[in-house]
């Protein structure tokens, strides 16, 4: 240190190294911030109207012989699901119609839809639309859509739909 108390920066290598490290960290953080934003724009792609698919799935009309009298009547999928819990004869119709709808609506090119229909006691349907490589990460909550409908025995039926990689 000189007489007047001024200190040369070059004489303080530790301070200089600290500054250099901080600058590198700063640049790194700026770079990462940009990367995170770029990824965010990909996540935004996930605003595919998945709720519309579930809503329309439940509203789809399907023809069913309700009383085994060879007369087909039109009910919607929500009704068919409720009926399937009480009568297993409707399960095949439910499965076939579900498969038909989901195979037409591939969400993101390489992905297919999975569906789970269950009430408090049992799983009625756990359908993978086509063979998948695996589930999407559970952390992507926005990709899970679900609806609940009441059953005729006062139990809640949950319908959960989510995409998986094909």
């Amino acid at each position, binding site marked *: 240190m000189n007489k007047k108390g001024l200190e040369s920066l070059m004489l303080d290598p530790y301070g200089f190294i600290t500054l250099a490290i901080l600058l590198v960290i700063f640049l790194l953080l*700026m770079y990462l911030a940009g990367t995170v934003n770029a990824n965010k*724009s990909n996540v*935004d792609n996930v605003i595919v*109207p998945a709720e519309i698919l579930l809503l329309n799935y439940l509203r789809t009309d399907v023809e069913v012989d309700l009383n085994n009298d060879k007369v087909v009547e039109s009910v919607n999928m929500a009704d068919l699901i409720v009926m399937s819990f009480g009568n297993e004869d409707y399960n095949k119709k439910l499965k076939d119609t579900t498969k038909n*709808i989901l195979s037409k*609506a591939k969400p993101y090119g390489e992905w297919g839809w999975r569906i789970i229909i269950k009430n408090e006691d049992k799983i009625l349907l756990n359908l993978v639309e086509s063979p998948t490589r695996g589930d999407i990460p559970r952390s992507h909550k926005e990709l899970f859509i679900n609806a609940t409908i009441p059953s005729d025995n006062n139990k809640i039926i949950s319908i959960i739909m989510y995409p998986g990689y094909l």
Partner: protein
Amino acid sequence: MKKGAFTLSIEDIQAIPKLITLYFVVFVILIGVLMFYSRDIDAKKSESQTLFMRLLYSKNCAAYNDGLRTYPGIIDLGKFTEENLNKCYAVKDTLVGLNFILKDFTGNIVKEAKLSDISVDLCDIPTKNFDCVKLDPVYVLYFNEGIKKGGIVSSTVILKHE
């Protein structure tokens, strides 16, 4: 001392490395900030999806309305016309173009609406002054002669460059 010459005190000389460091720090911060702001975030697909959602959700576009409420996701074929959708989107003479195709489950085209002066066929050309965003098909319902049917809407959004 010569005329016009100036003297540097020891403090001035010692300040030179500090000034260099200061300029270096400012330079690095500027580079960092510019690096962040000049990053190109691709929002074309998000923008296109948002436009497409309007078709399904708005009663002014193609969503079915029974006079009491609107049913998002159910297409009113009477509204699925170029004239009505042009009113709904108001994209005429803008940099945005849209093309919607409604198909039934067998793949037959039920209805098509083109809201662009650029044909979708030109999307495959490698060098062009517009971008084409092909959105994933969406399962919809529509009324045909009073019967509710399932179908698929495919859409392409054309974003012209300025």
